[in-house]
């Protein structure tokens, strides 16, 4: 699938043609839960990007030292190491958001995308390009979540980043605050994405 290994090719692949969420439906476990507020989503996604980039970098640097049999558990430990750092930083500088995110920061560890990228890319590529791959995969992940969070916050609370943008007379969609709407939003986004892809292929 990865024909193109240049920095630009990876960027395009990770953001669009091979987007982790649209195409592979991976890693939605931990992060859909926080998409009812843009602020939380942004912080969470940045956390994922950092963890993903540094995990890829680390795995790529020490890949020749890891015995093949235990590489899964080693990767998991590397990921948890970075997640703990992110968690501590959040607790220190953004205590309120850290409380709102609750256990979901810790659940970045089991986010399948991170392990997937470490296994599929960092395991067989050079450190710098692996780091780039991690960052761009994370960015591809981030913008999808931000779109979902944007719609959910706008319709659910009438706000964007906590600022009121809709008039008082707007009736808030309670469903948008609740879990089911995240599924619907993601389904609609996948639909749109597939529609665009199919049109391109038809040309």
């Amino acid at each position, binding site marked *: 699938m990865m024909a193109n290994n240049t920095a630009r090719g990876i960027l395009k692949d990770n953001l669009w043609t091979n987007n982790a969420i649209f195409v592979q439906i991976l890693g939605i476990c931990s992060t859909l839960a926080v998409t009812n507020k843009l602020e939380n989503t942004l912080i969470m996604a940045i956390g994922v990007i950092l963890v993903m980039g540094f995990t890829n970098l680390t795995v790529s640097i020490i890949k020749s030292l890891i015995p093949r049999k235990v590489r899964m558990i080693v990767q998991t430990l590397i990921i948890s190491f970075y997640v703990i750092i992110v968690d501590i930083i959040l607790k220190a500088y953004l205590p309120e958001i850290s409380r709102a995110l*609750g256990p979901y920061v810790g659940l970045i560890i*089991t986010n399948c995308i991170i392990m997937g990228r470490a296994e599929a890319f960092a395991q067989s590529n050079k450190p710098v390009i692996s780091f780039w791959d991690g960052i761009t995969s994370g960015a591809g992940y981030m913008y999808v979540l931000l779109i979902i969070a944007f719609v959910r916050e706008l319709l659910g609370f009438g706000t964007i980043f906590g600022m009121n943008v809709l008039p008082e007379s707007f009736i808030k969609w309670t469903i948008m605050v609740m879990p089911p709407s995240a599924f619907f939003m993601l389904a609609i986004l996948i639909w749109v994405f597939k529609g665009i892809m199919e049109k391109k292929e038809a040309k």
Partner: protein
Amino acid sequence: MAPDISPFILFFASIFTSNILLANFLGMCSFISVSKDYNSSNGLGMAVTFVLTITTAINWLVYNYILVPFEIEYLRYIVFIIVIAATVQVLEMIIERVSMNLYMALGIFLPLITVNCAILGVALFMQLRDYNFIQSIIFGFGSGLGWWLAIMALAAIRKKTDRAPVPAGLKGPGITLITIGFMAIAFMGFSGMLAVQ
């Protein structure tokens, strides 16, 4: 301090109202990919319930008797994940020895479970909400049952939607997510019956 909830309510709340999957989005990856097949869904559901009950108990003991006395709670992510991985490994060996039938049913799913977010999620929730030992076991078992129930229901519905005329772009993951959304709404209907959490 442990919250004052009757075990009965906690048990039902963890199955229905705060279903680990539909309300907390945990364990989605394997949920979507495995639910294509009815029999594997059953096997994975069983394995998740089994592992969840055991690892939640072990994690509770480890957290309260090792991490808290030494004041290294911030290491809990690493410790929980190691406990889960180790437990799954040991369970796999024990099951292989004790019952070949059970091993055939659960065997291939056990490695998948280590990276199932639901397992780690339950451990983190258990710690965050300060459940006591008994409550943790009930919570773990109930969440497992809830996950099992949800994946069985989805697998059954997917059998139908696979043959239904669906817009091309929605085929596969799209329609599955919408189905999950409706299931989440249905499960939310239970929330009037019990206090959530």
